[in-house]
């Protein structure tokens, strides 16, 4: 009896072994534990708490959750599969314009529009993925950058459809589930964004801890060796790139629906670059890093950029250089290091 409970306990929280084996190696030996940790549950209660504690910041928190979802989608392809993309905003923008155009032309039902956005972004992502798997880092970078710029130019020139630089306005949103209207204070938008983010997070969390997710990490760490154990690298990369594009499309659609406006900047290069910054700020390949990075970045932007946009850009630049030189792994990486040190000291 006691042996049984002991062994289940062990499974739930693997004890630190005395062998010099890093966490990386350990997780490579078997599938990671899929159970939700208390800290994760606390993390998800934070936005709920912020709804009651900071009612004046509902819009900002909603934006953080939407951008956090967008950052998650990049984490899938960059953090897990190791594809450096400089044009991820393309899919975000596709989703935003899909939802926006549907709503402008009379289809105001939000949930179905999310699916439509995911479908459109996913289809384009699938096509682009064929180009992405062909080349190496530089070519991938250029292809993603090029696709992003192409879509931006297309949306810019096709002003009769997209509204061009003036943006797409006149969106009329239907009620969520036919019950909740999108109110002026952004309460519905808040819960809507939270719900979509949470549901997709649960799915993605399961995905990255599945054998498929493990094989992606394998590709990231050593793409040449993966075929030797029977993994079809190209197919996996295409799959995750498509999934990442779909999630980005949903995030874009969420932004369009909650703000009821689509600006040309949803497709712009700065959006892709800032997304990358948020992700490395939080820490890649951890899912939570994307969310934390988005939150920290957007709060900082809200506080600092009001002073002077030029200073803000200087500080992001400086910050990036410092992260790369001294703090690889971002906030989550740093927290894990501190946690690991703390854990090592504890038993002694």
């Amino acid at each position, binding site marked *: 009896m006691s042996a049984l409970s002991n062994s289940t306990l062990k499974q739930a929280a693997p004890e630190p072994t005395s062998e010099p084996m890093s966490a990386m190696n350990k997780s490579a030996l078997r599938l990671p534990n899929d159970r939700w940790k208390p800290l994760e549950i606390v993390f998800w209660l934070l936005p709920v708490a912020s709804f009651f504690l900071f009612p004046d910041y509902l819009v900002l928190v909603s934006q953080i959750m939407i951008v956090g979802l967008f950052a998650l989608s990049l984490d899938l392809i960059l953090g897990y599969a190791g594809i450096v993309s400089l044009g991820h905003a393309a899919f975000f923008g596709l989703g935003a314009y899909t939802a926006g155009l549907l709503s402008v032309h009379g289809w105001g039902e939000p949930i179905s529009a999310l699916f439509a956005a995911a479908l459109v972004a996913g289809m384009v992502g699938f096509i682009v993925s064929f180009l992405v798997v062909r080349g190496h880092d530089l070519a991938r970078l*250029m292809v993603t950058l090029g696709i992003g710029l*192409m879509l931006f130019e297309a949306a810019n020139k096709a002003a009769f459809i997209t509204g061009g630089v003036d943006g797409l306005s006149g969106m009329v949103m239907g009620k969520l589930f036919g019950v909740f209207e999108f109110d002026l204070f952004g309460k519905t938008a808040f819960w809507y964004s939270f719900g979509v983010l949470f549901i997709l997070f649960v799915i993605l969390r399961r995905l990255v801890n599945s054998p498929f997710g493990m094989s992606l990490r394998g590709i990231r760490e050593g793409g040449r060796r993966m075929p030797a154990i029977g993994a079809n690298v190209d197919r996996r990369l295409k799959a995750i790139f498509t999934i990442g594009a779909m999630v980005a499309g949903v995030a874009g659609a969420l932004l369009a629906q909650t703000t009821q406006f689509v600006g040309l900047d949803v497709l712009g290069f700065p959006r892709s670059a800032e997304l990358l910054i948020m992700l490395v700020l939080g820490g890649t390949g951890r899912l939570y890093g994307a969310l934390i990075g988005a939150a920290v970045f957007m709060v900082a932007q809200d506080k600092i950029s009001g002073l002077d946009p030029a200073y803000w850009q200087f500080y992001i630049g400086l910050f990036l250089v410092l992260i790369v*030189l001294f703090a690889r792994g971002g906030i989550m990486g740093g927290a894990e290091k501190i946690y690991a040190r703390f854990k090592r000291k504890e038993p002694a």
Partner: protein
Amino acid sequence: MIGNFIGVLFDGIAYGSLLFLISVGLSVTMGMMNFINLAHGAFAMVGGYVCVSLLQKLGMPFLATLPLAFIAAAVVGLVLERTLYRQLYQATHLDQVLFSIGLTFMAVAGATFIFGPTQQPVNLPDWLRGQVHVLGLDVGAYRLFLIGVVVLVTLGLYFLIERTRFGAQIRASVDNQTAAAGLGINVSRVFSLTFALGSGLAGLGGGLGIDVLGLDPSFPLKYMVYFLLVVAVGGAGSIKGPLIAALILGVFDVAGKYYVPEVGAFVIYTLMVVLLILFPFGLVRRKA
């Protein structure tokens, strides 16, 4: 119509040679150090601002400012290579991309702070303005001058790389760092000097390009794609590849903007994606 076409071709070649001048350093550093440097345009911007400042503040003649633009950008490049870049040669491409985006943002914000956000004017000397009559065609004097400078620089570069001892060291380091170091070449010094040379050429291009590309703080971001494009399409590590790529891109870009202005920059991005699909490793693939 034909005259028109030749005019477009000429402008395209001038534009392409300018792109080549700025990007060739990027190609060599990318091929040699395997470093994805998105901040290359910032070195061109340094050259541009040095040029403009000397022209406006000190009233120096345009031609005299160009060598100083080269030197200033080369010194900035050398210092940054020695202090920061070299720490990241072994880093992942993601780290390099982030680091160089960070540098670019800082350069953009710094330039806005010092010079203001507006376009900088450049006063060309009289003999570089207007049109000249060459072989029955009226061509822009400045564009002709531009092509001339780039031809000279390219010949000089070719001589340096193919005929001198330093050039041989560069080629050896590009081909195989370890073996080059084993033969007693000071690879780290070759890297630094090459990086400085590449940055200097970008600075020269930045100074020469004010009249064609314009100069404002967003310069490094605005043209980043073009410089990367030249290298990605041409193939990193060579000189011939980027030259061909830059000329193709220059001609297509100018022709696209002239003949089908309504689609604008679409032409060049489409061309880029098509070329990258056809040649994922660049037009001229370096022998390993």
